[in-house]
């Protein structure tokens, strides 16, 4: 007995968990096999044979363990076998005698049996208790054993006090027969284990990396998290077992999956469950990781385990090579987990102190040495708000985000209500409440059905996701989607995605609440406000640094980040499809709603049809015209948006990591990417966080700009919008203004082809107008909602680092109309040159004097001052000069500003909120010309100081014209025909897009369009466009010789990289890692009720790259990564100079007062950026990345790739420093 115990506890003691989880090592793999034979009676008898043999083997025993094993089988064997069992019980043998004699595998087996028994005992007690006397005797023995097991485990004494009857929880899903035949399949288990070991090295890696595998893994993890959230550890364990028990499926599990289940049990304080899962984990050869230990420690504190147990656990942790400090530095805690773990540690080390927060690292980029050096510290600019005010605004924002959506009045609400509308609204309200009930009922019924369905069936896969929110919230979401469905309908895929992600977003908010993450963010934000508020001490931190400091001080460590819990795309789609199906089936309307003479029959509101597009079909959901009619009659004036669609009402939370920043609750990605792409996030997570600091700081700087509404302009726009719109001024007219379709005689015989065509055109136009109108309505309504407020646009970026404001509808990246209604909230005096800058800005906006020098533009503005003032004073009734300009609304806003400023007693002291823009002239080519030091190119894109702005398009046009003349003289027909047609307009688009990799094919199409516009003879268009695009390419080649070389080098390198099966990656000079997310699309078909849906499978790093896209996109993406770097550098240095700065890609905005400073910084940073050895660095990086020298077998293509990558193009003779003095570089 003692020996056995020793054998059992030997390894377990060191483990420290109290229960030897290692004993389980082979148990579960056995049970997988057993499951298959569950009900086979013949096998059971076979089993008995084995057991009998076993009993003989064991010979004599007085050890209850063995007998109990037999007893366990009793319920399964039926009455007939009772006698046999009796016999085995009486003929017990002493196992302890055997132990020393048997090989070590024997001890293993025994250990296993022990454990199984323990499990069984728990489970069977209730059954056993109701047995006969004889049975009762057995129970007693069982209890004894149970007690012994416990006692051994915990205190290693056979104390009788623990003989209280164990709880008959029996919560595990394990089948009764699971454990019983364990001994029979032992040899097989052993063999399997060996097989597994043998297979692992070869097949597992490729298996693990497959796309399907990853998706499945993510799905399982996600389902487990769901159960964790729902506090249903039983369900989680059921699911885990389902995979755990099958060697094939088990490959889909990771340590994290077990950790999630453990955490579920830990939250309920079930230590033995946690330990059980831990032993499962070990049994399949996984090592517990830090997270596993935190869970264990947390649970131990909760269940008040003995000091010894905790001590053993910590010992084990150290033995595995971890450190106690790691727990607090590397793990993400939720709720009070951290406190619990700390408590546990302090039980054994009362004086344990939390590790000091890591010292903030400082970015070492050469470009930002001055920026980050603390020598020239300027305190962070203050906002014009007190702490109290900011706190109130934060509260408002928080409330808005907590309710997920916000309903605001549309700008159309000022229109009077017609009686018809009132009636339609009543009708709609009645229908809506009916629909709501119908949907709720359908949802509940469907969920009930699902909960009874078997595990693993397709539907129950999404069942947990249907439980994470209250049913009513799902109904809310469905009603929201129904309300915004356009009369033209929407594709199933889009709707499903929308529904799915809405559920996800709400779930996320709930999770943040549940895990106390929100409380912590709130606390930090309240302190963070002090950095920004005017009535608090100046401090010399950047927002990110300050936030990090506060987090460290509060001791939250990384706990502000939630564990990654995003739902796989496939799950989102499935969930969405499921909800959509419920909507289609449940929402009905009486057929006679509009035509009372029809039968009052209920018909579905949503119908599902297919639309055929060339070779494939797209499923559409369309609302019934009855529905669309009522909605349009009701003319409802409330609009509902996601809270993330509204600009923030308080300064955004600074980005401190790729997973944290922007909105308070709404999840925002630092980098935007296509659905399912995970490479970017991986790359960001992997790269040293300090490298991201410049990018994060730049985004914070852009997001920190406070905005307000230009109310007079907004009012004028709304008045036109509510009148009849104005297409010329870009205010979309209402659909009622759409051209009326020709009247079709009701008894129409064959529709004429032309009539049909006309009908179609009308429909198309109406659909277009509807979407334009809705877009404008959203923008203006949001603007109107924030008209009296100060607001912020949090920013994120695309994968090349180009920055975008997060709110989608209304932001400064919008069209002329939206830009015209935005003003800086902060005002600055115009200063001595401010008014002039306003005037120059005005002329720039008109597009009238592009080729003139700044002074001439200013003179022109002064010349037409009368027009400007007239426009400002009588915008709609005066001479309307502003209307005939390139950007009429911004011109009008600017006119008003100039009028106010020039009429103020001292224009220099006039406080202006107006943003003045400076545009890069053909920014892409500027970067190319600088990269290649192209002299001619540099001149033509204004890198060289000149008296008048150079226009690259005209220069190219001239060049092309020269080519044409030569060809015409040589008698080329098309060149002769083209005489007099070549101009700036014709070549502009192609030149502009050449930088971004337009091909001959695309270029020709552009040319064709331009030629049609200028009424070129139609019969020559094809030939002429062909000729022209060739000449434009030649012209550019001539002027930007190095540019073409660079472009070709980039293209060729990307091609070779992609062909070698890798994706093109690089790092911007600011340290942002970039990967091109173009892969050969593999789509997965989701079979859903309504129809099957083809979904682009979530791409991962093992997918094959799409060579053509990788190749064609590399030059433009690379250039974009450079222009974004230039912008960020400018933004950061403007911040140090205390400037307000925002950007629309290559258009930089600031106050009129600071235009000159911004211009200077912009040029300095451009020079600084291009003084870096950009191409050499790129070449080095790629050589390191793609041609690692370690590889022995250097194949031909590797050689070729190496040569290509090393062959950096030569550069020209342009002196980069000239840019500093170039007036028209950005103007």
């Amino acid at each position: 007995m003692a020996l056995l115990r020793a054998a059992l506890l030997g390894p377990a003691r060191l483990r420290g968990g109290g229960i030897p989880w290692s004993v389980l090592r082979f148990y579960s793999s056995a049970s997988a096999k057993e499951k298959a034979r569950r009900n086979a009676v013949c096998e059971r008898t076979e089993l008995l044979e084995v057991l009998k043999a076993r009993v003989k083997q064991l010979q004599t025993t007085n050890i209850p363990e063995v007998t109990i094993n037999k007893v366990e089988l009793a319920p399964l064997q039926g009455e007939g076998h009772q006698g046999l069992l009796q016999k085995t019980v009486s003929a017990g043998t002493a196992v302890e005698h055997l132990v020393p004699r048997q090989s070590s595998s024997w001890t293993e087996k025994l250990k296993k049996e022990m454990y199984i028994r323990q499990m069984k005992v728990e489970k069977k007690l209730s059954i056993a208790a109701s047995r006969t006397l004889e049975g009762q005797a057995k129970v007693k023995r069982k209890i004894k054993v149970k007690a012994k097991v416990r006692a051994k485990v915990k205190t290693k004494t056979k104390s009788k006090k623990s003989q209280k009857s164990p709880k008959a929880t029996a919560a595990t899903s394990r089948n009764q027969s699971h454990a019983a035949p364990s001994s029979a399949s032992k040899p097989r288990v052993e063999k399997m284990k060996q097989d597994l070991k043998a297979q692992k090295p070869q097949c597992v890696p490729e298996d693990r990396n497959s796309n399907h595998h990853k998706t499945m893994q993510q799905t399982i993890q996600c389902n487990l998290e769901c159960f964790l959230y729902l506090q249903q550890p039983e369900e989680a364990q059921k699911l885990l077992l389902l995979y755990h028990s099958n060697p094939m499926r088990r490959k889909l599990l990771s340590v994290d999956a077990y950790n999630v289940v453990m955490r579920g049990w830990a939250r309920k304080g079930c230590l033995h469950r946690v330990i059980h899962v831990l032993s499962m984990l070990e049994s399949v050869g996984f090592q517990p990781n830090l997270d596993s230990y935190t869970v264990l420690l947390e649970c131990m504190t909760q269940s008040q385990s003995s000091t010894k147990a905790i001590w053993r656990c910590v010992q084990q942790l150290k033995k595995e090579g971890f450190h106690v400090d790691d727990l607090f530095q590397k793990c993400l805690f939720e709720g009070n987990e951290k406190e619990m773990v700390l408590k546990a540690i302090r039980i054994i080390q009362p004086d344990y102190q939390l590790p000091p927060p890591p010292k903030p690292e400082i970015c070492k980029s050469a470009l930002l040495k001055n920026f980050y050096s603390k020598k020239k510290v300027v305190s962070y600019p203050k906002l014009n708000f007190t702490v109290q005010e900011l706190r109130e605004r934060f509260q408002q924002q928080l409330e808005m985000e907590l309710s997920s959506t916000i309903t605001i009045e549309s700008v159309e609400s000022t229109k009077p209500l017609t009686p018809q509308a009132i009636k339609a609204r009543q009708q709609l309200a009645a229908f809506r409440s009916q629909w709501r009930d119908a949907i709720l009922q359908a949802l509940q019924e469907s969920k009930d059905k699902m909960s009874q369905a078997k595990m693993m069936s397709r539907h129950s896969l999404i069942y947990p996701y249907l439980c994470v929110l209250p049913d009513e919230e799902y109904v809310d979401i469905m009603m929201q989607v129904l309300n915004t469905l356009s009369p033209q309908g929407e594709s199933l895929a889009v709707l499903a995605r929308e529904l799915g992600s809405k559920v996800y977003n709400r779930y996320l908010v709930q999770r943040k609440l549940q895990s106390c993450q929100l409380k912590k963010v709130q606390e930090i934000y309240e302190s963070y406000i002090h950095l920004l508020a005017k009535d608090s001490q100046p401090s010399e931190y950047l927002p990110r640094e300050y936030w990090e400091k506060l987090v460290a001080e509060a001791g939250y460590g990384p706990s502000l980040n939630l564990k990654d819990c995003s739902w796989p795309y496939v799950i989102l789609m499935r969930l969405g499809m499921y909800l959509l199906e419920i909507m289609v089936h449940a929402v009905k309307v009486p057929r006679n709603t509009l035509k009372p003479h029809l039968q009052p029959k209920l018909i579905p509101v949503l119908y599902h049809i297919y639309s055929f597009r060339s070779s494939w079909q797209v499923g559409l959901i369309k609302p019934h015209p009855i529905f669309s009619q009522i909605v349009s009659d009701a003319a409802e004036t409330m609009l509902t948006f996601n809270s993330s669609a509204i600009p923030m009402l308080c300064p955004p939370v600074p980005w401190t990591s790729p997973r944290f920043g922007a909105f308070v609750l709404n999840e925002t990605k630092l980098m935007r990417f296509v659905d399912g792409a995970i490479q970017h996030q991986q790359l960001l997570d992997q790269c040293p966080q300090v490298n991201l600091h410049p990018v994060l700081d730049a985004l914070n700087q852009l997001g920190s700009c406070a905005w307000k509404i230009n109310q007079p302009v907004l009012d004028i726009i709304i008045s036109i919008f509510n009148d009849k719109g104005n297409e010329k001024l870009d205010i979309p007219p209402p659909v009622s203004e759409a051209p009326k379709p020709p009247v079709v005689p009701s008894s129409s015989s064959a529709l004429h082809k032309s009539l049909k065509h006309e009908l179609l055109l009308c429909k198309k136009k109406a659909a277009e107008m509807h979407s334009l109108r809705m877009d404008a309505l959203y923008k203006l309504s949001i603007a109107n909602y924030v008209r009296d407020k100060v607001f912020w646009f949090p920013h994120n970026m695309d994968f090349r680092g180009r920055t975008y404001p997060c709110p989608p509808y209304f932001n400064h990246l919008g069209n002329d109309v939206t830009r015209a209604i935005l003003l800086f909230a902060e005002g600055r005096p115009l200063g001595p040159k401010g008014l002039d800058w306003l005037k120059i800005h005005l002329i720039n906006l008109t597009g009238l004097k592009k080729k003139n020098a700044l002074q001439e533009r200013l003179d022109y503005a002064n010349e037409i001052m009368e027009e400007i003032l007239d426009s400002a004073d009588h915008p709609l009734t005066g001479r309307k000069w502003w209307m005939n300009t390139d950007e009429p609304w911004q011109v009008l806003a600017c006119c008003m500003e100039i009028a106010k400023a020039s009429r103020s007693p001292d224009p220099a002291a006039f406080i202006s909120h107006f943003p003045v823009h400076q545009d890069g002239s053909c920014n892409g080519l500027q970067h190319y010309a600088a990269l290649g030091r192209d002299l001619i190119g540099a001149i033509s894109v204004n890198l060289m100081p000149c008296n008048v702005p150079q226009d690259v398009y005209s220069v190219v046009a001239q060049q092309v014209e020269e080519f044409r003349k030569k060809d015409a003289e040589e008698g080329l027909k098309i060149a002769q025909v083209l005489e007099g047609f070549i101009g700036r307009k014709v070549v502009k688009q192609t030149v502009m897009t050449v930088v971004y990799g337009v091909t001959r094919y695309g270029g020709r199409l552009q040319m064709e369009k331009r030629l049609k516009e200028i009424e070129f003879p139609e019969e020559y268009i094809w030939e002429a466009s062909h000729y022209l695009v060739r000449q434009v390419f030649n012209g550019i080649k001539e002027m930007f010789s190095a540019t073409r070389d660079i472009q070709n080098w980039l293209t060729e390198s990307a091609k070779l990289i992609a062909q070698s099966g890798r994706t093109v990656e690089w790092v911007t000079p600011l340290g942002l890692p970039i990967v091109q997310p173009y892969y050969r699309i593999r789509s997965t078909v989701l079979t859903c009720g309504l129809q099957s849906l083809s979904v682009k499978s979530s791409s991962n790093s093992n997918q094959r790259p799409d060579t053509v896209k990788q190749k064609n996109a590399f030059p433009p993406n690379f250039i974009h990564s450079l222009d974004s770097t230039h912008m960020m550098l400018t933004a950061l240095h403007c911040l140090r100079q205390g400037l307000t700065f925002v950007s629309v890609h290559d258009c930089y905005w600031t106050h009129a007062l600071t235009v000159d400073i911004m211009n200077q910084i912009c040029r300095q940073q451009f020079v600084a950026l291009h003084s870096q050895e950009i191409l050499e660095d790129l070449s080095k990086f790629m050589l390191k990345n793609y041609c690692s020298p370690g590889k022995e077998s250097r194949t031909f293509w590797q050689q070729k790739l190496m040569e290509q990558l090393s062959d950096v193009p030569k550069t020209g003779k342009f002196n980069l420093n000239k840019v500093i003095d170039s007036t028209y570089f950005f103007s």
Partner: protein
Amino acid sequence: MRAGRALPGAAGCGRLLAAGLRPLLGERGPCWAAARRAAGWWPSPELRVPQAAEAERLVPQTGGRCGRFIVCPQLARTVQRCLQAGSGPQHVVLECAPGPGVLTRTLLNAGVRVVALESHPAFLSKLQSLENSLDGQLKVIYGDFFRLDPLVTGAVKPPAVCSDKLFEAMGIAPVPWRADIPVKIFGIFPQQKERSKLWRLLFILYECSSIYRYGRVELNIFISEKEYKVLTAKPGEMRTYQALSVLWQVGCDIQLLHMEPWSSFLTNFKNGRLAIPRSTLLPNDHLCLVRLTPQENLFTGGLKPANSATFIFMVKQCLTKPRSKLIDRLNSWSLGNAGKLLKALEIPKYVETGNVYPEDYKRLFCALQNSSVFAESWFHDEVLESIRNINL
């Protein structure tokens, strides 16, 4: 060398006597000849039909439309017999893209009046010289049958042709639908976009526009075997029974005249391959000469050229997912009492759409049409849209 020549299907051709040297159909009696003349047959011009190898040299390997040509005299004679085997007055055959003219000569020799529609300049000149050497039995027109009545607006530029012009040139006037077939057309389907060409023909058939404005024009065309299988698929063959099958079977009498291996035809594809469309599910070893004669009673029971687009739309919607229940489809369009309707039509209530007979689709449509469900505006709109997507 091209694989087309080496394969056994065409191997026998070379050994044949040149057709021009043989008395054509000499074995028939004088009585038959008289009947022929009465029916408008022309006396055989006794042209020499070039042999395969010779004809091959006539096909330029570059330039012009890529296509498939008959160069084997034996195959030409088979086709000619098939063309003549049909019923009705048979004085004109419109031959599309005759190419080297092997079949043209064979037909002419058989006394058929031929209108040749050719777009390739190299062939055109040869055909024109042949035309000039004959006394009106052959008429050559520059144009491409598969670019008939282009849907783009604006002037029709050759080789696209207008059906009006074409039929005027052939001297054929429109006849009522139920009248006899006005003209026979022979052609080989271009393999690119075979499917969309079939759809296009279907649309003009149901609309009674383009060539079908002139009556029930009989098409004799070579199509790939797999498409033939689709056209003639039966309900229940879930993989092959498609909207195209239903619509063609409702619209036309489909008759298989002849099957010929792909290799018997000469191609002028640039890579010199046979360019056989890939097919995994269906056999695709042959080109099938299929006769598509529009049904005389197509426009009965409520189906009219005016509403036929709705019918096409309905069938397409049903058969996108052949395993779905017909009743579910009908209900999902909010069409009202689908169960009752099916009962009245004696169509099983829970039948899958892939199991419904073509005639039943027509009856279903007619019943729906008569109960004026389609008048509800949404269906009308969708139909218009679907026309745009397919037809424009």
